[in-house]
């Protein structure tokens, strides 16, 4: 089977779906690999590197005609047009956001697997691109914040006076949030975290962060690691707690996402106003509408004296590592679904079932169907 890797077309994207190391593994398994010229340029991987690893370097058209085509970001309608009828494609899709692409895929009977839909079960952890990318994003968000901030993170007692440590307030202690805690803490900041899931308290503390516990209120139902239902009372109390804390914060990082929904607004404009001049907010959820009311996508804006960073594609700022991890994720999924003879199509198997979006001209993914009401 021939695997094609396309150069990303989305603005700001720097990642590439396979890296030379992983290409070698893919070839070892008996696949052929063909990479679009310049695909790795922005991730510091040259065409020569790919060739050295055993891949062919070819034109976009040629790569698109492979049996399986890999990408990081979802395929556009034009890209789908270039694909072979009945072929297979794998990438992040967030399928519920792109109904027209789904139609295009179905029209060409292309089977599409989505990386973001791989179920988060234990044995699929190696394919969990959401985690791998969120982890990097969590690190990067702190570096971005540290870079934008007019002060240093650690406490420092010097001859010219004492510099107080930067106070970082983090919303959401998922994968990205936790890595942000760890990174900010290493750099010497005082880190406070709020989350709706009670078990995150222990996790945050295990990294040296302080958890803002909403006292005396229950009302959070957790299902499969995700907060399913949060009572209004809880949210109100949480907001009051946060409002008191955000005034002192130098850097605010928001990471709260709810899959398939608009991100909750956690930092209102009033809160922004209450913050100190010169402080910084990094909104990681800006692509799904933002956790901060005044963040703007892919822009750094200054509002009420506060710098608000709305970078939508943080992993793309770490192209080397992000590509490396994504390549492992996607190749692991590939090896799980297929061998050199072809795909296994075990339609009832959990991972296949969870990640397959379109197949034989139909939208088969339950969750996407629900959201799109199809």
């Amino acid at each position, binding site marked *: 089977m021939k695997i094609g890797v396309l150069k990303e077309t989305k603005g700001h994207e720097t990642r590439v779906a396979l890296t030379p190391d992983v290409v070698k593994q893919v070839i070892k398994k008996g696949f052929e690999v063909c990479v679009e010229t310049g695909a790795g340029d922005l991730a510091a991987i040259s065409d020569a590197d790919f060739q050295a690893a055993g891949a062919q370097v070819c034109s976009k058209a040629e790569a698109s005609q492979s049996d399986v085509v890999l990408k990081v970001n979802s395929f556009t309608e034009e890209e789908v047009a270039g694909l072979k009828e009945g072929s297979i494609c794998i990438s992040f899709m967030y399928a519920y956001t792109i109904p027209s692409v789904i139609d295009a895929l179905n029209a060409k009977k292309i089977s599409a697997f989505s990386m973001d839909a791989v179920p988060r079960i*234990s044995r699929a952890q190696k394919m969990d691109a959401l985690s791998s990318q969120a982890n990097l994003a969590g690190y990067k968000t702190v570096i971005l914040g540290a870079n934008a901030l007019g002060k240093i993170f650690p406490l420092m007692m010097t001859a010219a006076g004492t510099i107080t440590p930067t106070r970082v307030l983090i919303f959401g202690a998922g*994968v990205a949030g*936790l890595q942000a805690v*760890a990174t900010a803490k290493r750099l010497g900041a005082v880190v406070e975290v709020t989350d709706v899931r009670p078990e995150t308290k222990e*996790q945050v503390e*295990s*990294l040296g962060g302080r958890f803002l516990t909403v006292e005396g209120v229950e009302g959070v139902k957790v299902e499969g690691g995700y907060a399913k239902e949060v009572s209004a009372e809880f949210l109100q109390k949480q907001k009051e707690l946060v409002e008191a804390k955000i005034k002192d914060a130098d850097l605010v990082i928001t990471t709260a996402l709810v899959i398939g929904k608009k991100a909750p607004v956690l930092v209102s404009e009033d809160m922004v106003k209450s913050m100190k001049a010169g402080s910084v907010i990094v909104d990681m959820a800006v692509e799904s509408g933002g956790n901060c009311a005044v963040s703007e996508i892919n822009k750094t804006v200054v509002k009420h004296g506060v710098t608000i960073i709305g970078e939508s594609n943080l992993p793309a700022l770490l192209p080397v590592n992000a590509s490396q991890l994504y390549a492992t994720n996607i190749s692991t999924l590939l090896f799980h679904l297929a061998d050199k003879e072809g795909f296994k199509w075990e339609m009832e198997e959990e991972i296949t079932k969870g990640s397959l979006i379109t197949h034989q001209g139909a939208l088969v993914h339950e969750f996407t169907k629900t959201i799109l009401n199809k």
Partner: protein
Amino acid sequence: MNIYIQIAYLVASILFIAGIKMMNKTKEARKGNLVSSVGMLIAILATVVQVQAITLVDILGCMVVGSAIGLYFAYKVEMTEIPEMVALFNGFGGLASVAVALSDYWLKTQEQAINVDAITAVSVALSIFIGGITFTGSIVAYLKLGGKISGKPIMFGGQHMVNLLLLIAAIGLTVVSIMNQADPIFILILVAVSLLLGILTVIPIGGADMPVVISLLNSYSGMAACTTGFVLNNNVLIVAGALVGASGIILTQIMCKAMNRSLVNVLLGGFGQTASAAAADGPEITVKEVGVEEAAMLFDSATSVIVVPGYGMAVAQAQHVIRELSEQCEKRNIDFRFAIHPVAGRMPGHMNVLLAEANISYDKLIEMDDINDDFSNTDLVFVVGANDVVNPAARTNPQSPIFGMPILNADKARTVIVSKRSMGKGYAGVENELFGYPNCLMLFGDAKQTITKVVNEMKEM
């Protein structure tokens, strides 16, 4: 008595003291045992030279027979059976004291028909009483440990009452026997009572507590020897017996403390059940617990150690004390590495962050794929607050939610110690049968606290 013999006894006593003192230190312990055995040899020689030529044959004969039996068993037993063996030898020692005291008493009161003075008589009674308890108690302990009778505590109502009554009876019998020295029946009943009491005090005790019991009985046998010394008016018996009696009590107390029990409980007998840490639900996993001292010993005697850190290490913030552990091991030239499972903890790189904070060199952190083959050649794996990442169900049980997840082959090591607080489950919420494996020992308690204790033990070794 000849002055030279007395001096020999004094020398023997000194050698016993020196021997015990040397046995305090790991390095000198073996020499200490030798020193004390030389003392014993001197004491025996000094005694043998006193005997009549005509009985010498009997004496040498008995000694040869006894020694042969002793040596045979000492060298034949499996290493794992040593505790039983010690119990058995100890019982013989106790019975020997009974026999000596009885022999002397019988000789005087029955055969020579003289009245012995009260002090001697009381000494005889004490010797018989303590020696008798030691004998049967040790035999019961021997049987329990060897699995020849059930290790479970055997209990019945009013046990304490019966013991108390027997004790009172023993005192009464002593008094009466002194009054009527001509009639041997009382002293013989005293023998029977002591033997019975020995059985009754030990049967209610569970198999896991046997080491403490043996230590206590060892102390008793020393006391029995000591009282025999009073019977025979012999200093070396008093010194050696008192040494063993006192050190045995202290040792028992130390062992009790290590097991979280009070000596009073032990002395009263019937100090009950083994603490058994049963799993909350699901298929019951029977685990073996290990104490901090034993854990320290296992580290001390390992040549290679792999630490498997997990989320529990992060929760306990045990990373700093683990670094101390690594320093202790490195001091002993023990190969010490960390096996980092890719999803240990609750975020990617969780373990890396914490271990870096504790200043553990990057070289020591080995990826799963690079270390997984090394576990089978590793003496000791120390699992610190990890659970799912070492759960063999991921390899073997297709029903398990973690089936298919690659895991660290911790179970393949010679010995595994798991530090966690309870039988609590990990993130995936599944039982971990590794904990019940024969090579796995559980070190319960907060990781930071228990490891601190282990490190302290190691520092003292």
